[in-house]
């Protein structure tokens, strides 16, 4: 564990005696803690999160509510992003996120520390979100391989995108493009792409979460990536911003 990880953990321990069990109190105390240079604990670099995560999990497992709260503070934004991306419905996304954290809290004792807490949490949240999506759109999310011929995803007319798209578009504009394009993807492909390429789960973890084979994950990921590339091509090629 690095120095910053130790400091954060010490700050968390110190705060426990000041504000036990209250999220706003914890947030405010963390913001004021002299060992933290940032006023927003959500924005700590991910390397720090990885380094001390197991300490927080161990403390939370031992019954320390404020350690669990720190884990919530750290991952709530990402978990909402995931449930929103899967369900595309704000009410479902919020319910799925709440239930995911409640379940994580209730089942913390069962968590095997061989994997990252975040990965475990992502899988719980993805399941909650998928359950709601399947309920709302029962015919759109299948466990079977989507019927599609190989020729459907063979790209036509490949053209260079020119200079790096990241440099050509403003951050907000790029975000709108990425969001619009992924929304057009059929749910089967979107969910596998989200878990593998946005959240960084392994093929095996994605397969277990969605309830499909690893071969199906690979097949959907290939098609999902190619479909997204094709849809992005529309923006990156036709936009008048070419240099």
């Amino acid at each position: 564990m690095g120095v910053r990880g130790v400091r954060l953990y010490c700050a968390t321990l110190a705060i426990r005696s000041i504000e036990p069990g209250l999220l706003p109190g914890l947030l405010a105390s963390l913001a004021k803690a002299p060992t933290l240079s940032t006023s927003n604990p959500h924005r700590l670099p991910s390397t720090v999160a990885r380094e001390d995560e197991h300490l927080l999990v161990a403390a939370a497992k031992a019954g320390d509510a404020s350690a669990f709260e720190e884990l919530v503070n750290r991952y709530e934004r990402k978990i909402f992003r995931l449930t929103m991306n899967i369900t595309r419905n704000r009410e479902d996304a919020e319910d799925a996120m709440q239930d995911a954290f409640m379940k994580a809290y209730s089942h913390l004792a069962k968590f095997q520390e061989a994997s990252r807490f975040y990965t475990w949490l992502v899988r719980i949240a993805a399941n909650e979100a998928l359950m709601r999506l399947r309920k709302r759109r029962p015919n759109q999310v299948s466990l079977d391989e989507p019927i599609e011929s190989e020729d459907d995803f063979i790209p036509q007319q490949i053209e260079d995108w020119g200079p790096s798209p990241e440099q050509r578009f403003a951050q907000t504009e790029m975000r709108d493009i990425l969001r619009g394009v992924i929304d057009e993807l059929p749910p089967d492909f979107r969910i596998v792409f989200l878990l593998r390429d946005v959240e960084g789960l392994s093929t095996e973890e994605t397969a277990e979460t969605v309830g499909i084979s690893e071969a199906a994950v690979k097949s959907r990921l290939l098609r999902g990536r190619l479909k997204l590339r094709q849809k992005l091509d529309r923006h990156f090629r036709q936009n008048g911003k070419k240099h």
Partner: protein
Amino acid sequence: MNCKGVITRISSYIDGDLEATVVEEIELHLKQCQECTILVQQTKVTVHLYYDSDLTDYPVEVQARLHETLRRKIRRERK
């Protein structure tokens, strides 16, 4: 290997999930095919753009309701 062979393996190729002999075949094809080279590059850019991307706002009221719900649950379970 032809273009179709590359396209069907493009995902595994960029993930480094292929046997060395298959990678060699793909790279031999890429040296001769500009379209497949662009396709591989654009697929990599696509994956890169989405990785850990923050596409959704996290409304403060959603955050507040989550904290309130969890606080109530923790209090309840401690009793």
